[in-house]
């Protein structure tokens, strides 16, 4: 399922073939495809995002999305770009939603990670609330860079902005967090 270029080409051909059969309604081929892709998606997410707390959710969301998008795969075109475009998009959606869905105490635990170089939070519920009070862009930038461990470049790519903008957002986000704590 990985390794040499030959293995990758073989995987591509096998997955494309299964999906083409699934598009025609072959449940067996579809089951085999999803079973194999679940492992591929999990490995991809770990290599790309690290060990996420909600890794299982991300894998399942991705499988659901693949199911909904299965008619958009064009047999004969590369499989991996199609697969990973969907997986990446669904995972980013999950990560964006995570701070909103996370209970305050959990959010606090995440903010309390050593990677976070802001003020030492003393009160879990308070900091969870503070994070929620940041604008969407600032919160997302802090979550991606300081919590998820994305590099500035990766964060910039995901948000569709330049690296300088990300640096400014991190700086402003941390400053705002400090200011909010002092109020």
């Amino acid at each position, binding site marked *: 399922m990985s390794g040499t270029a030959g293995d990758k080409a073989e995987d591509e051909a096998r997955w494309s073939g299964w999906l083409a059969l699934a598009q025609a309604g072959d449940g067996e081929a579809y089951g085999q495809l999803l*079973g194999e892709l*679940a492992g591929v998606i999990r490995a991809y997410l770990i290599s790309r995002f690290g060990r996420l707390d909600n890794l299982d959710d991300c894998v399942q969301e991705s499988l659901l999305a693949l199911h909904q998008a299965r008619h958009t795969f064009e047999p004969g075109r*590369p499989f991996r*770009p*199609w697969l990973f475009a969907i997986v990446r998009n669904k995972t980013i959606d999950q990560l964006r939603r995570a701070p909103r869905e996370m209970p305050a105490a959990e959010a606090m635990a995440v903010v309390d990670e050593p990677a976070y170089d802001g003020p030492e939070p003393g009160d879990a519920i308070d900091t969870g609330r503070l994070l929620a009070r940041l604008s969407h862009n600032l919160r997302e930038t802090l979550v991606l860079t300081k919590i998820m461990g994305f590099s500035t470049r990766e964060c910039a790519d995901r948000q569709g902005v330049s690296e300088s903008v990300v640096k400014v957002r991190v700086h402003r986000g941390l400053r705002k967090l400090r200011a909010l704590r002092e109020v």
Partner: protein
Amino acid sequence: MDEDKLIASLKADLSPVQPLGSASRIALLWLLVSVAYVLTVGAALGPFRPGFVGELLGVPRFSIEMILGLAALVCFLVVALLESIPGRAVGGLRRVGWLLLLAWLAQFVIGFVAPVLEPSMLGKRDHCAWEAYLYSLPPLAWLIYLQRHRYVLEPVRAVLHSALAAGLVPALMMQVACMYEPGHILTFHVLPIGILAAFASGLTWMLSQRADS
């Protein structure tokens, strides 16, 4: 839900699906039908500017201006359709589309100093801006419908490019149907494209934010 159970339920839910048609064929169909629709409705609601055929064939700068606009339209149309297929790289085509649009707009800015055609009120349509909005809505709705039947990963961007393509159809029609004067063109034929694009993508953004929360 356990992963194996999820896979089993997806397998049980499986039904045959129609593979996507060729994007270029769909784009061509959309273009032909939209242009035919806009020309027909436009002709029904008022006469075209007298002598526009001679201008198109006899004034090279005017032909180039129209070709630039048409090329931008085609780029945005293809981008809008390909953006609704996961994993299709459209960055290059998108950039070409924007460059062509800027080159097309530049013709009108240059036109303030050196107009392509002699500015005149000849052919003026009283409600050209409203017509531009009105004519672009059905092609836009159709394009968004086509996208929704695919799988859009970046809805705001997809709708933005759809609105640009749909807005360019009546704007180009007005180039031959309404008066030719750069200020009038920018205000009443081109601005509606920007407003339509901003409104459609803003609305999509709001709806996606609401769906997220």
